């Protein structure tokens, strides 16, 4: 058997699996989305129908807020952890990256334990203020949940980028008389630019598509994945669910591709 034949045989199972269980189904999804009474207009309904549009705007705003907050938090903590050596640093880093493997539903439960009816915040405010504050099932709770799963991903990317920074640049800046604030503003943060772009893309795309957390928490908040789920199961509006899924998949894919080409790195969302 020739080498080329063997290599082709090696690729065959992968090509078959991907074709049968990914490419074909996704094509079918796109077709079903356009096969309702309104045809291709199901796709424009995502933007034109007020209810869908409101949900889309909601989801984009929530994802954007999550991304912005995550980047700020992860930049501060990531720079700090990578720049200082102190006892307990390894444990602290492990704690910050540990939730990486939590499914979205578990993240939702974590927020219930923090801010739910029997949660920590409610318990503490009940004792201090005499009134329990419960916000797990509101948009603030959902935001907290999205932060919870975004922070570990982004911190890892930023720490890796900080490690690769050239310390000579900072020393040069300091030698030229720049204070710590100026060094951060003019040297460190610009050098981390590509890492910020890449991790923003990951955080945003993940937040747009997050289903598990929303499923556990969002009893009365409309976010896109919940809308798709309810259209499919409760309203049996399969055409619209398919069109919305295709839209969501496209948005997530475009954002990750943009992030990848702008940062020059490999970007992937998961979970």
């Amino acid at each position: 058997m020739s080498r080329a034949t063997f290599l082709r045989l090696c690729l065959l199972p992968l090509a078959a699996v991907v074709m049968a269980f990914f490419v074909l189904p996704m094509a079918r999804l796109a077709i079903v989305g356009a096969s309702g009474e309104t045809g291709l207009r199901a796709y424009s309904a995502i933007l034109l129908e007020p209810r869908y549009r409101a949900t889309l705007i909601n989801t984009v705003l929530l994802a954007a807020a999550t991304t912005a907050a995550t980047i700020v938090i992860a930049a501060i903590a990531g720079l700090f952890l990578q720049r200082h050596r102190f006892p307990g640093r390894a444990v602290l880093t492990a704690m910050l990256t540990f939730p990486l493997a939590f499914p979205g539903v578990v993240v939702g439960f974590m927020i219930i334990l923090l801010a739910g009816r029997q949660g920590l915040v409610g318990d503490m405010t009940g004792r201090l203020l005499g009134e329990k504050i419960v916000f797990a099932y509101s948009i603030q709770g959902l935001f907290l949940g999205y932060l919870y799963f975004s922070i570990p991903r982004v911190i890892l990317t930023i720490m890796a980028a900080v490690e690769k920074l050239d310390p000579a640049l900072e020393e040069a800046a300091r030698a030229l008389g720049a204070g710590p604030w100026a060094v951060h503003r003019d040297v460190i943060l610009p050098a981390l630019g590509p890492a910020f772009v890449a991790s923003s893309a990951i955080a945003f795309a993940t937040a747009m598509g997050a289903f598990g957390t929303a499923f556990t928490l969002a009893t009365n908040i409309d976010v896109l994945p919940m809308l798709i789920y309810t259209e499919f199961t409760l309203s049996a509006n399969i055409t619209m669910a398919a069109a919305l899924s295709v839209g969501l998949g496209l948005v997530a894919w475009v954002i990750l591709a943009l992030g990848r080409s702008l940062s020059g790195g490999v970007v992937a969302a998961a979970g």
Partner: protein
Amino acid sequence: MRERLIFAGQLLFTLLVAAFLIVPAFLSMLAGVTANYFRGIASGFTLQWVIQVWDLYAETIARSLLIAVATLVVTIVVGVPAAYALNTRGGRLARVLEEVITLPLAIPGLAIALALLLTYGAFGDYRRSWLFILTGHVVFTLPFMVRAVMAVLAAIDVKTLDESAASLGAGPWRRFRDVIVPNARPGILAGALTVITLSLGEFNLTWMLHTPLTKTLPVGLADSYASMRLEVASAYTLVFFVMIIPLLIAMQLLAENAGAGRPSS
């Protein structure tokens, strides 16, 4: 003085972020073994909730383990040869294929699950069996295995190894078995840990693909969060943590070893 203040401020901030992530996980483990969480740990510790979880959900735990192992086997059999071929062949076709198999990382699981349902939902026996869930898990985890193996193959000079084995007269299958696979082992191991961890925790696809008779652990978790008392939900989450924490630690150790073995750049 100012430096120390900045250090203290940053440390405090980082500790707060860590607390936000760790305190709820700790609370859930605590609640899982507390007799009455509302009354606090003063009510005493108990294993009754864990036992109750075992009675109610043992089946979901076993099914999740089965699916994770099956997913691993499929991703190894399909992914490792493919990673080798993609690494060796290069060219446009290989790049396109690599791009296509990484797409499931970008597209939300909900969309993939819906696509699978619309395409194969009519095949009743298949749709009702755990193999339907396995399909979803394979699509979702395959890129992780392929990329982990490709990363290792790219770091070592596989082409030279492969060609010298060929010049010694080894056929392609023997070279693959005796040269490529042993050299790719760290990548296969890293990929395997990722695949198992992801499969055990997969919810977005599984929730859409499962039937009442094919519930997995995360599906059961969602169930218990919605309908069980907090202690039972917590005990169930505790069981999940106990299953994935060793995997996470193994991954961390593997990454550190790989980092130590590589010459620093």
